[in-house]
């Protein structure tokens, strides 16, 4: 008997603060104006995507002590944009990254419960953690958290938020004018939490929201991060959008679920993926090369090399050979507030490998960065891209993808118009939303113990 076709989940990441985003293109619009968010969200909804995703930053990135100025800088507040987007969409899930280190559970739980009410059940929370004093300088809390406590605090934060969400059952509001009873339970919202990171008690003041709890996403890739996702998350953002790496990650994370009494379908694995779409495969290849050159200017290439070398390389010519000096290994780092820094755990080995590759191919600094950095995950005609996405999902390399277009806000338009219909023709992607809430889109159960379809 042949395996039934898996249904693909698709989401869209609003292009912003990363070196994927091409801002110099004449078609690039504002990443702050609400009109950009509206256009992007409506395109995602027109294409029946599961959700839109917004990242978060809590301090502007710096390089050699100065604000990094080559990529998009600045973004609006996640919660506020998502609440406003609820007014211009009807079905699209609205997912935001919110840091658990520089917030308190009561505050975040009430914001997410409010967002879930205001979106009629479309809210999701990508729980991230931070420990660095650099970001902490913007907060009362400061940079207090030892790195090894990141996930213990995050896990307790999330558990506490769930206690708050669950402090209302959902049937307390009677609002019966005849009897004068507004609240059916004098203790609605009562909670006590006593733990290592939080010791709080009282009454939660937002009644139970349509999804019971927002959908929980997690994005870490370390062993602790994978374990946290397996125990607590509904979906995980991964970096592995290729067949072998994707399958290995998928198998590893899904295997961990059993430990927590969970079934594989209770956690969706959604890698972030970029794409270059053309009329033909050859045209798409050409576009991909062009976009890559726009993403990596000479100045960007030098700065990228500085992440690894951890020293000032401004005297080098980006069109010349790689430096023959070694990276500086020290506690301080030239780039602060950037996720990429963590990708190069052994800078000496990386530098050696890059020098060898550049020499072998005759690459300049810029060529090297162009050829080693993020390439577009899906390159081709609409047919090619639809086939590749479907193949990866059917082969259990992912449950779907979070697409990261390189243009704001129109970067999703062609994908919506040309690739989505092909996936629908293949019978692997919805033509209509199955239900009103994000839990319905993702096929997740309602936390009150019934299938998502129940709430329809």
């Amino acid at each position, binding site marked *: 008997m042949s395996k039934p076709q898996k249904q693909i989940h698709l989401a869209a990441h609003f292009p912003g603060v990363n070196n994927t985003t091409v801002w110099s293109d004449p078609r690039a619009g504002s990443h702050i104006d609400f009109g950009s968010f509206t256009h992007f969200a409506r395109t995602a909804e027109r294409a029946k995507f599961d959700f839109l995703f917004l990242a978060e930053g809590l301090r502007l990135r710096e390089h050699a002590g100065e604000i990094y100025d080559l990529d998009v800088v600045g973004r*609006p507040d996640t919660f506020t944009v998502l609440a406003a987007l609820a007014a211009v969409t009807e079905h699209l899930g609205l997912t935001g990254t919110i840091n658990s280190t520089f917030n308190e559970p009561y505050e975040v739980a009430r914001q997410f419960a409010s967002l879930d009410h205001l979106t009629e059940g479309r809210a999701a929370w990508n729980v991230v953690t931070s420990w660095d004093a650099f970001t902490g300088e913007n907060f009362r809390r400061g940079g207090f958290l030892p790195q090894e406590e990141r996930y213990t605090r995050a896990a307790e934060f999330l558990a506490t938020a769930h206690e708050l969400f669950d402090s209302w059952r959902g049937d307390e509001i009677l609002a019966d004018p005849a009897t004068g009873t507004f609240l059916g339970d004098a203790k609605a919202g009562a909670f006590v939490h006593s733990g290592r990171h939080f010791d709080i008690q009282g009454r939660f003041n937002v009644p139970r929201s349509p999804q019971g709890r927002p959908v929980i996403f997690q994005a870490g890739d370390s062993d602790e991060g994978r374990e946290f996702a397996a125990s607590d998350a509904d979906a995980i953002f991964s970096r592995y959008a290729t067949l072998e790496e994707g399958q290995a990650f998928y198998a590893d994370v899904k295997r961990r679920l059993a430990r927590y009494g969970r079934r594989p379908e209770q956690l969706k694995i959604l890698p972030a993926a970029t794409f270059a779409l053309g009329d033909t495969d050859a045209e798409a290849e050409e576009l991909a090369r062009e976009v890559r050159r726009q993403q990596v200017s000479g100045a960007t290439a030098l700065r990228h090399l500085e992440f690894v070398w951890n020293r000032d390389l401004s005297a080098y010519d980006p069109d010349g050979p790689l430096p023959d000096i070694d990276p500086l290994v020290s506690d301080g780092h030239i780039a602060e507030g950037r996720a990429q820094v963590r990708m190069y755990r052994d800078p000496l080995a990386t530098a050696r490998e890059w020098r060898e590759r550049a020499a072998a191919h005759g690459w300049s600094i810029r060529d090297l960065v162009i050829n080693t950095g993020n390439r577009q995950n899906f390159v081709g005609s609409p047919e090619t891209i639809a086939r590749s996405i479907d193949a990866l999902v059917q082969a259990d390399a992912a449950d779907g993808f979070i697409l990261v277009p390189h243009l704001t806000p129109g970067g999703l338009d062609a994908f919506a118009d040309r690739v989505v219909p092909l996936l629908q023709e293949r019978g692997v992607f919805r033509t209509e939303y199955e239900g009103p809430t994000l839990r319905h889109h993702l096929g997740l159960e309602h936390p009150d113990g019934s299938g998502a379809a129940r709430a329809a």
Partner: protein
Amino acid sequence: MSSAPSAPLHLAVALDGTGWHPASWREPASRPRELFTARYWAGLVTEAERGLLDLVTIEDGLGLQSSHFLEPDDRTDQVRGRLDAVLTAARVAPLTRHIGLVPTAVVTHTEPFHLSKAIATLDHVSSGRAGVRVQITARPHEAAHFGRRTIEPIDAYDSPAAQDLVTDLFDEAADYTEVLRRLWDSWEDGAEIRDAATGRFIDRDRLHPIDFEGRRFSVRGPSITPRPPQGQPVVTALGHQTVPYRLIARQADIGYVTAHDPGQARAIVAEIRAEQEAAGRAGEPLHVFGDVVVFLDETERAARDRLSRLDTAAGSPYESDAPVFTGTPAQLADLLQELQAAGLSGFRLRPAVLGHDLPALTRGLVPELQHRGAFRRAYEADTLRGLLGFARPANRYATTAA
């Protein structure tokens, strides 16, 4: 009958649950089961906009409502539970075009960096209509929701311990508001240059650390969110005595006060102006709005009857910090103009029953004031600052010529 005053009168409406009377949810015009839906709030704000009001405020709090000021109660006969006011304001922003949106934010337990970018973003999503009402909480049980600090219970508001606590919390609120304002200025206008020739997206010389060092916290900056359309969203605060008047005088664009008669209004305005001068802000625009709870009907008798019917349902006579008005649109217009002549520049009206008194304001009071030449007949500006007669402020950090 008062003659038309020279300055235009400003009108705000304070939205809270089903209205300010605790039994308001039991009235036929109320929709208490819809309180936690976007549709409900959109309906209220669009009604206020139909009446050409300057702004709405949206009440909030970090604890469940209570009939005691400083302690929780276990009552089940009043509205309990509320949605986050900033998110509610953002949710209705795209559905409105002119009216100012002023959510309440509690500053005692939250992070100024988060609130600064949230209000800046509300200004971006509403194209320049955002404000915020900063509020402190001295409630020990709300501190217990956060577990970061302990607030000792106070018995009487006028005790020295209570005064010390309140002064401390308001000083912290002043620091907090200073951080909000500095972060809004931390990006100069035009900092986003998109200079393809040099590959620079921003001019980093036009972004500024704020380096705030206060007694309770420090914040480095700059903001992650570019300067909002109004430059500075409108900061508001409610005050009942000298300590909060000082916050209003130092940091606010609008102060809400609870003057019960023209004499009191004159005295409060004089005190706020004196504090303003002491704070070095003399002459800077600062509105003082009077708060009034409103029961509005076609006859005075009907309004009084409604109040007593609601009091009977509630089980006790209604009490408020603000004056409680019962009467007709013409009588309310008289009262407002009388208080305006005593120095108030506008009013924040608190509808006793939103489903009844809000439309009574927009369809009764507003035409009455228009008829007297005392209120706008169309929105004259696109931003909240514009409606309030405020200029767009210069950026305190600007080093480059505009």
